[in-house]
């Protein structure tokens, strides 16, 4: 029982990282109704740029965070213009496949930047273990968890308390109507990608920093974890992204403890597969689906 609870604590801590990644997916999906598969790889490229600066120039933490986030945003905007803005509005599949094509580009660029398999990623968390009764938590995980909460609160404020936030939600709700309100949807897509990339860059930095190393596989890893967490929670839902991230973290932590790394990975996919079959809307998505149906019936 203690083991299980300890796993759950670890899972929640790590799941908060997944939640951040899922938020990135869910925001873009909510606004554009499209999947950005190259979200993970753009974070990876951002982290590579950060590592490159770390190895060659400076070990200043703030500078590396900045380089990571700015590169992620730049790559995110490149992806947005090429795979989303330029692609026809009615071709959602084309955008998804296109973002995948760019993924391969990004991976190759990263390999040219730093050709080795693994690089150390700067760690700025002092690693200590904190005991709480029979349980223990690593301090870097606590900082990650707290930072996630802060980012989440900021995102919520942005979406529900600011004008750009309102515009973003309007475009997400009815893109055509928002044009008539004088909202420039192209700018909003741009904004959504920028916001998501900032989130992604920070999430990537937190996760890699806790891990203290970076590999080219981080792109694949981040895309998959974010995607799974979003689908588990429900596509396009902010609450869903967070719940999905935490659920994924908890399930993985337990599967790892009782079965090892392979079982951990399989369990994540199995969970996703079952969720999609039994409850495609995810943890909170079902309610939204019904609401939409009711709205449709009335008009």
């Amino acid at each position, binding site marked *: 029982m203690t083991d299980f609870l300890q796993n759950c604590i670890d899972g929640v801590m790590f799941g908060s990282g997944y939640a951040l990644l899922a938020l990135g997916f869910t925001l873009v999906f909510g606004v554009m109704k499209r999947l950005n598969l190259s979200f993970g790889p753009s974070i990876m490229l951002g982290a590579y740029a950060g590592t490159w600066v770390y190895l060659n120039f400076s070990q200043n933490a703030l500078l590396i965070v900045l380089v990571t986030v700015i590169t992620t945003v730049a790559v995110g905007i490149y992806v947005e213009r090429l795979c989303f803005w330029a692609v026809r509005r009615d071709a959602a599949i084309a955008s998804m496949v296109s973002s995948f094509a760019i993924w391969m580009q990004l991976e190759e660029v990263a390999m040219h930047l730093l050709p080795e398999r693994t690089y150390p990623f700067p760690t700025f968390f002092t690693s200590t273990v904190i005991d709480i009764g029979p349980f223990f938590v690593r301090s870097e995980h606590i900082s990650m968890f707290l930072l996630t909460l802060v980012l989440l609160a900021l995102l919520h404020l942005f979406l529900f308390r600011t004008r750009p936030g309102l515009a973003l939600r309007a475009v997400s709700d009815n893109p055509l*109507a928002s044009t*008539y309100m004088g909202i420039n949807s192209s700018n909003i897509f741009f904004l959504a990608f920028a916001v998501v990339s900032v989130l992604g860059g920070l999430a990537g930095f937190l996760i890699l920093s806790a891990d203290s190393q970076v590999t080219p596989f981080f792109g694949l890893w981040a895309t998959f974890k974010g995607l799974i967490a979003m689908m588990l929670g429900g596509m396009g839902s902010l609450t869903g992204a967070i719940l999905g991230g935490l659920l994924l973290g908890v399930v993985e932590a337990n599967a790892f403890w009782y079965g090892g790394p392979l079982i951990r990975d399989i369990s994540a996919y199995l969970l996703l597969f079952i969720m999609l079959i039994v409850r495609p809307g995810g943890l909170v998505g079902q309610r939204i689906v019904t609401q939409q149906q009711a709205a449709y019936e*009335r008009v």
Partner: protein
Amino acid sequence: MLKVDNIVTRYGAIEALKGLNLEAREGQVTCLLGPNGAGKTTTLFTIAGILNSHSGSITLEKDNLTNLSAAGIVRKGVALVPENRLIFPQMSVEENLIAGAFARPRKDQPAINADLKGIYERFPQLKERSAQSGGTLSGGEQQMLAIGRALMARPKILMMDEPSLGLAPIIVEEIFGIISLLNKEGVSILLVEQNARMALKVAHRIYLLEGGKVTFNGNPQEMQQDEVIQRAYLGAGST
């Protein structure tokens, strides 16, 4: 007030508007009638900047609107109540209304709040449901919301695209009541409508569109005197 001068608009190779002229006068209801595909909605979209015209000019009072961005045109004082209402289904009624004022500058906030109150006074049903999400409203209420939302932009001219589409006769009656009330309060309206009989009741001036061109313009009396037009636009069976 709003002058459309010799506008040509194309969809790819197809010319949807072939040199269209019209004028909407201050304080009047101007109505566009015509068959499907005549270019009525295209005209509204071109004025609103959602489509770009190929040649010609559009002016509102002294402002040249030709090929401004959609956002810019809303800011100049043209608001559109779109076909099929197109409210924001997941956002609350209040958020829908606030979104309507999006093009107004931030310093207008006190005025925006006052306008919101004004809309609620005009449409008490919307106030009752201000926290409900837009998608849960009935068709007629959604149309009211769409009108209220457009008014939040404080437009000089309000363009309405088929406000009666798919609505029950009693609701159509109500919506046209709102239109003529707004007009009496001094709002200039450019109306596209299939329901010619209702439109004739509120319009000051009628434009008939056919194949991207104006084929007739005049006041409702003149239109009712012309038998050919009568038969074509009011329907054979109508009296």
